[in-house]
């Protein structure tokens, strides 16, 4: 009920656990009980990024459940590749886990495209749980006349005005869904890559670009103020936050794309560790505090346990890889 009491509680347990761990020499059974020391979550993006804002509230609710401190370790770089590679190479003992987003499936494909050595593939990770999945939304700014996706595609095809779409970077999470849509619609458009979700949004608000695929959470404030207009949503169903915006499927494009955040362990992590983390994640995902923190971010918790997450991830990886191939080498 009260967030203060909850955090104070979790801090206290964390502190007690840490003290206990520090005082007692590691007992013989320490190999069997997981976790017996702090667990690190690798956040592969800069602080405040998509993975970070989920990881921090999650760590706060996981601490009292697992009775160990959960540490967020930021290893940003190369659009999330550095952190993912670090986690893939980490000792598979369950003390280094990864929080990553939809773009995790694209790195291997991009490396193959450029003839670089593939650093890791999806097989290097065991999926544990998915926490949120925000459908992407295609938005235009308020200086564009388009009210529907059809008006927009027609104008883009006719090239009556020079339309530009911005993105968070080449092959980034905001570029991939746009590439899928452009291919499906048979439209060619100029691409303005930037170095992050924030700059991509700044570009469209300043009319330096006119179109953007954004997560609903990031665009919502500007949709409400009328600075941006949503034309289509990339979810399977209409999003609760945007009930009036049709989905791509309704409009005849068979495209789905989500900005999701999930937890992964390096492959060969012991089964008992995975089980413990799955149970803890399940409990955390339904925790009031976590749900409220996500709600505040404009997200609904879209929890999936391992089997469902695995199936979702496999399907999602195909979408991502197809998008990367569609974009091709620039």
């Amino acid at each position: 009920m009260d967030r203060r009491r909850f955090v104070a509680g979790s801090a206290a347990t964390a502190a007690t656990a840490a003290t206990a761990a520090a005082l007692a020499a590691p007992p013989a059974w320490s190999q069997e009980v997981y976790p017996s020391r702090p667990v690190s979550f690798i956040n592969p993006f800069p602080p405040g990024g998509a993975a970070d804002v989920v990881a921090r509230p999650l760590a706060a609710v996981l601490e009292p459940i697992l009775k160990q401190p959960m540490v967020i370790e930021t290893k940003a770089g190369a659009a999330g590749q550095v952190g993912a590679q670090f986690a893939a190479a980490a000792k598979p003992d369950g003390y280094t886990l990864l929080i990553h987003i939809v773009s995790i499936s694209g790195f291997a494909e991009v490396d193959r495209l450029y003839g670089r050595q593939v650093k890791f593939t999806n097989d290097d990770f065991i999926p544990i749980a998915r926490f949120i999945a925000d459908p992407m939304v295609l938005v235009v700014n308020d200086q564009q006349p388009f009210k529907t996706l059809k008006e927009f595609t027609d104008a883009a095809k006719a090239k009556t005005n020079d339309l530009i779409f911005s993105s968070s970077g080449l092959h980034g999470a905001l570029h991939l869904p746009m590439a899928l849509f452009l291919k499906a619609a048979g439209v060619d458009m100029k691409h303005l890559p930037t170095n992050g979700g924030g700059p991509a949004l700044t570009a469209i608000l300043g009319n330096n670009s006119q179109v953007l695929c954004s997560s609903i959470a990031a665009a919502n404030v500007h949709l409400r103020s009328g600075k941006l207009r949503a034309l289509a949503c990339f979810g399977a169903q209409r999003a609760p936050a945007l009930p009036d915006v049709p989905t791509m499927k309704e409009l005849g494009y068979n495209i789905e794309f989500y900005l999701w955040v999930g937890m992964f362990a390096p492959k060969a992590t012991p089964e008992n560790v995975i089980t413990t983390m799955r149970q803890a994640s399940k409990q955390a995902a339904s925790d009031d505090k976590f749900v409220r923190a996500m709600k505040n971010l404009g997200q609904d918790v879209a929890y999936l346990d391992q089997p469902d997450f695995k199936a979702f991830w496999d399907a999602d990886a195909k979408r991502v890889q197809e998008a990367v191939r569609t974009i091709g080498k620039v």
Partner: protein
Amino acid sequence: MEIFDNLLLGFSVAFRPDVLIYAFLGCLVGTLVGMLPGIGPLAGISILLPVTFGLDATKAIVMLAGIYYGSQYGGSTTSILMRIPGEAASVMTCIDGYAMARKGRAGAALAIAAVGSFVAGTFGVIMLTLVAPPLANFALRFGPPEYTALLVLGLVFLAYMSTTSLARTLIMACVGLLLGCIGIDVMSGHFRYAFDIKELGDGIGLVPVAVGLFGLGEILSTPSKTVVGKVVPPRFAELMPSRQEWRQSVMPVARGSVLGFVVGIVPGSAHIIASFLSYAVEKRVSKTPEEFGKGAVAGVAGPESANNAASTGAFVPMLALGLPTGPVTAVLMAALLIHGVPPGPQLVTEHPQVFWGFIASMYVGNLMLLALNLPLVGLFVRVLQIPYAYLYPLIIMFCIVGVYLVNNSIVDVWIMLIMGLVGYALRKFHFDPAPLVLGLVIAPTFELSLRQSLVMSSGNWTIFFTRPIAGVLFAICGVLLALSALSWLRQKDWRERLAETETGKK
């Protein structure tokens, strides 16, 4: 009058004892984080973010913002005392601040930095109070072409920055620009000069380079110098700046405040650019430009004010539009979001007590920082009395830990150590490392915005002149270049005079 009612509401929130405590905590942590090399406001805020989950939104943002602007105060301390930029934006302070310290005016430099920061911070908050929404919309018009123009202006100013010869400055700047090309090409996805080291994918970090070149380079070159022996502890009266020093710092502080605020509101620009520009401007308008690099008061007052005003200016797009201008404001925005207070145009109307409480807390926070930093000047100066044999190993340790913590990357530590050796060599051959750092800051952004502009115009270069803001900025560049060409033709360049005196000495 509405604004006074709003501010009154804000102060009623900011003066609540519990809010005051969190503002103080934020300022304290910010000062500490700013002082430690490497650990910047970004690390400080993200580490403390989970702690704020138990607080209400106002206290959380007041504390986290305190860390941010507090770090701009703290960053100058190690720059002045040890030539180590505690925070990236303090690079310029290293040059003249450290030179002042060598002359025994460390206390004066610290006091001027603190007061300048206070004036600039307060100026920034006043501007934020009065003109945030219209300014934010103006700032949005800063697209890639305008940004390109701003950076070209920065490069033109660069020529004025040199404390040595122009050729040496340009060599250093070119090396910096080349180093800035390392990493993934944002437009095409190719790795450049990365040798398959994935950590180099995002380029070479600014913090390891700055800490290595300035701090480590200085420490490494100490053994080969004649050791000065004991630093005489200054008497208290000598800690404070003299009347003349105060007088010399009035105008630089004023110019730095305005310049910093303007650069700060531009989305995507870093306050480090504000401090570079301020330094160049001060040197340009100074009657005694040859003093720069040898302990010019204006060289401390200007940049220190500019980086503080810029950190306040960065709040304009964040609060008014919900757009983060840099990594630090992105974390602050995430903090607000997690607390259920989405920043953006509706923030003022939907959460007035958060918005105005936050603004008011910045007035209070700046006062607190002044009160916190001025008395500490005497204490900090005493650090210089620690014998080098004990002090320097400690500093090297702090540098390594701090640089590692930025990205938890061992590659960054190697870069810092290598840059330390480079910095040593540069000192031996009397090269100024500041243009190198500026080149490194400018190169990636300059390249990106230049190429973005050309994407927008389908390769048509007139885009840089047909857009009004970009056109005006380029016109300023043109005037500056023409002026310097003129003065060169008249053979009255101060650099020549400087060169003459130098050769005369030899």
